[in-house]
């Protein structure tokens, strides 16, 4: 996002709308820190600027990733899904993406509202590579060499996004090992991540929940339930 200096009157009305505080003031001039801006377009969509000074320039690779990963109205070209670009367990009753005996992880880097660099995304992917199966229909996975976890294009590393979801799975017996890996790498990243654990239900129970609790990983009381009404059922 950019500000047309000719139109901007320096009122600062747009500042509070920026989720990552990239809009700043200096000597009564309002400007956008281009390194920090994640191209979410929240400021523009809000209509806060009555002068029409905010504008979205055309973005090129790799900066265009900022918009794809930060603006939920922009579909990801790799999956054609808006938001963060993945269906994860929401359609699992139809896709069978996560099967009985498997446990899925969605590691949403930068969430909630802190943002992340792809350098930090890569750190977590490197820690997981070889231990998990990365989800192929996921916009982070297409940027990775899934064998090593390294970004295919090193120019991506410096890009910042509001959040990006690393999605992967393993078997239930290896799930705790993955959680311990994530616990370790969490100390090395310069951001936060929100962690989802996905499990098929059996008789109104998620079998992996008990294993997690026994290992000291206690899930929160609320979450998402696919209620199994999709057809044909996988």
């Amino acid at each position, binding site marked *: 996002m950019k500000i047309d200096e000719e139109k901007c009157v320096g009122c600062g009305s747009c500042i509070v709308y920026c989720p990552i505080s990239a809009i700043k003031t200096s000597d009564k001039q309002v400007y956008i820190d281009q390194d920090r801006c994640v191209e979410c377009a929240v400021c523009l969509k809000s209509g806060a600027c009555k002068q029409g000074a905010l504008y979205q320039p055309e973005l090129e690779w790799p900066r265009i990733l900022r918009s794809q990963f930060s603006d939920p109205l922009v579909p990801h070209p790799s999956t054609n899904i808006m938001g963060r670009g993945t269906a994860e367990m929401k359609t699992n009753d139809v896709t069978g993406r996560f099967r009985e005996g498997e446990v899925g992880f969605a590691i949403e880097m930068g969430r909630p509202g802190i943002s992340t660099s792809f350098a930090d995304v890569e750190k977590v992917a490197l820690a997981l590579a070889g231990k998990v199966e990365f989800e192929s229909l996921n916009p982070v996975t297409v940027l990775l060499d899934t064998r090593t976890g390294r970004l295919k294009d090193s120019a991506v590393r410096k890009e910042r996004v509001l959040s990006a979801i690393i999605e992967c799975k393993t078997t239930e017996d290896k799930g705790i090992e993955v959680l311990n890996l994530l616990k370790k790498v969490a100390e090395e990243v310069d951001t936060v991540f929100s962690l989802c654990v996905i499990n098929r239900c059996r008789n109104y129970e998620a079998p992996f929940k008990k294993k997690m609790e026994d290992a000291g990983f206690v899930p929160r009381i*609320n979450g998402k339930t696919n209620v199994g009404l999709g057809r044909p059922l996988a």
Partner: protein
Amino acid sequence: MTHTHHRRGTRESLQKDYVVLAMIDPAVKAQHVYGGPLEARVKRLLKILGKHDPVALAARTPGRRLRYLKGWKPRMDSGIHRGATVRDIVTCEDIEGIGHAVYTSKEAVEAVLRKVKEADLGISIVVSGVFDEVFDICKKVGIEPHTVNMSLGTWGKTQLLPKSPILELCTMCGHAMISSRLVEAVLDRVKKGALTPEEAAVELGKQCTCNIFNTIRAAEIIRGGVSGN
């Protein structure tokens, strides 16, 4: 897209917050042909969602999202954010894609799931909320949960996160479209009497373009935040 996940708050507060989301996976064509044309099934679904007093209801049309949010008046429109009525959404002819709704009561979700089950639309349905409440609803309706997505919370540099109640309000938009500074600004305006908690809730909810924000719950949190409770 885990945007309805990781909502924060006390059990008492979360018990008034359910998101019902319908989704067709673009990667699975089989589901598109189940039970007739998809458009007709989505319209039926939206009618069901709209009938049980949603706090929020949303659907997609070509080039636009139709968004109903309880408390949103036409004078509150700003930028690209335009409010719609429940009627606008359930009677819209050119709906494309999927829909979702937010409810404050378990009874409403139970009624919705009962009707969706009867309609046998073949569309995947996900309910976000307190697990034991959602499982209880499933038992009453006679359906078995297929898959769960549990939250292990936030890891890493958690010292960067805003404090309560700002975090509770911000996390009702999973795509982080609601900035913590905007929350601080509206709380300040409520304290000064320039906005009611309900108006402040709509100002925040408008930024959540997916429209999964719960304005009733938000107004309660804002009221508590302003009074220091």
